[in-house]
């Protein structure tokens, strides 16, 4: 049995009368790429925010990297990386300055920051952009940069919230290469996405509908289960039942 790094049990978040996340229970194993799918408004982001310690659950329980999401959020934060839907590095700082800032916040030494910066810039091919303001980079590069910054402190788990929203297919492909590279190093990837072709890249996926997890398995098994050849069909089959409208 593989080590469980994320474990939720009937995790729920309510905003007033609205139940955004309704008793979700699942496990994520060490080193896997876990796809978190669902239509807009299904509750993916809310669920993720509870796991990374940005939002307090209403009920249920969960642990991330062995730490409790109610009481040990700061311990969780040491062990995870996060890349939000919205680009959230500092646009008025240069690439290098962003790297060094986040490195410093995570407690890396000056020497570590130096090595990490060099590594990162070479691997992303940003040599000419290193001293440019992040605001001047194209979106695809920004996404790759923020993914790399999320991995700066070598977290056990990295959470990606729609990381490839709005970028071209080629950049998406390159982005997934980065994800695979991180996964090969043993980092657990928790990724939400709208793109069903990306779902195929995941080891296991869960599909959320109206705040509940309606399916959870490997893409192959899900396709077998729904007797179809494409993830699209699986998704439509499940999402059709959704009552929530955006």
């Amino acid at each position, binding site marked *: 049995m593989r080590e469980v790094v994320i474990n939720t049990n009937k995790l729920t978040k309510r905003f007033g009368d609205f139940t955004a996340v309704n008793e979700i229970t699942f496990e994520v194993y060490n080193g896997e790429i876990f796809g978190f799918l669902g239509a807009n408004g299904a509750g993916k982001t809310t669920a993720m925010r509870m796991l*990374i*310690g*940005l*939002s*307090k659950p209403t009920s249920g329980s969960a642990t991330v990297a062995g730490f409790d999401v109610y009481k040990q*959020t*700061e*311990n969780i*934060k*040491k062990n*995870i990386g*996060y890349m*939000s839907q*919205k*680009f*959230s*590095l*500092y*646009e*008025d*700082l240069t690439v290098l*300055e962003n790297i*060094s*800032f*986040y490195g*410093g*916040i*995570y*407690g890396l030494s000056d020497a570590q920051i130096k090595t990490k910066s060099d590594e990162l810039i070479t691997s992303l091919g940003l040599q000419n952009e290193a001293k440019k303001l992040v605001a001047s980079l194209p979106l695809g590069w920004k996404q790759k940069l923020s993914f790399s910054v999320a991995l700066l402190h070598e977290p056990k788990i990295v959470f990606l919230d729609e990381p490839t929203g709005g970028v071209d297919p080629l950049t998406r492909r390159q982005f997934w290469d980065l994800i695979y590279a991180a996964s090969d190093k043993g980092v657990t990837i928790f990724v939400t996405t709208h793109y069903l072709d990306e779902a195929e890249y995941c080891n296991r996926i869960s599909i959320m509908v109206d705040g509940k997890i309606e399916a959870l398995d490997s893409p192959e098994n899900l396709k077998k289960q729904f007797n179809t050849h494409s993830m699209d069909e699986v998704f439509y089959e499940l999402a059709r039942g959704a009552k929530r409208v955006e």
Partner: protein
Amino acid sequence: MRTIKFLLRKEFKQIFRNRTILIMIMVMPVMQLLILPLAANYDVKDINLSVVDHDHSSFSQKLISKITTSGYFRLQGYNASFKNAFQLIESDKADLILEIPEGFERNLVRKNEQKVFIAVNAINGTKAGLGGAYLTQIIGNFNSDIRLQWQQGKGNNLPPIIDITSSNWFNPFLNYRIFMVPGILAILVTMVGGFLTALNIVKEKEVGTIEQINVTPIKKQYFILGKLIPFWILANVVFTIGLLISWLVYQIVPLGNIFVLYGFIWLFLLAVLGFGLLISTYSDTQQQAMLIMFFFMMIFILMGGLFTPIESMPGWAKVIARFNPLSYMIDVMRMVILKGSGWKDILPQLWKIALFAVVLNTWAILNYRKTA
């Protein structure tokens, strides 16, 4: 501690890359200290006076010339009737009407008693009030002058006169600039510190960068210190520029110890920045923060004792003024700069500001949540 180093480095880089903010920080104190004290003038001059003289006597002429030579009034002309003169007030051409009744000289000489009528356009309350008072005083002088003349030659029968001489301490010539400049400087520092801090954090909320910060294991008191220190330093720079301007332009040199002044401003800035932080924790957009800040700034400024003395406010307003950190700042500025007060004298204000600083910052740190 290392975290703070990184936070400060980031913050200063961002500030120095933001030209608008930088220019505002440097230009605002210079411009406002050059313009405001000259414009916010309490002296009332050039009051437009319209005269209705029904008497046309030498005494009425004497009175009018005494008034016009005082330098405070500008004669808008003579009118035949009060009705005509009143039209001037209605069209805002006159501020005051002086009506001298028929028989002014005769009654004055014979009965030793006469009344004149003053009508005041009270739309501009300050001008009207002061103008009326000036005029009353001049007529009073005129009155005692002629009484004195008439008594002469009648021997020892002089009327008893109590002569009051007053001397003004700390600002002997009642130069309003000396009074205003320290106060305006206090407001400037408050605005720069308060607004910048509040808007800066809310901007991070708007852009979404704060979320990236919130998923790091950073301690929130470090994050808040990283925000406080840069703006605290900037506000000190503004204050120093302001002191230099008051010295170079208005020749105002603090009579008291400059360290007393800085010591107080350091504590005061902690309070103001803490307030800015607090507002930022309650707002989600820069617009909200701006509006809330403006609401409080208006109260702070208008009830801070700069434009109207707190002592003459009604009781409930005095209570509000006690919760206004700016009122203590303006107080201390005037005490140290004009009176030369020392540590001992400003101790009461110092305690209160320290209390403000502690309460506001603790509140802000408690209300800043990394986990919603």
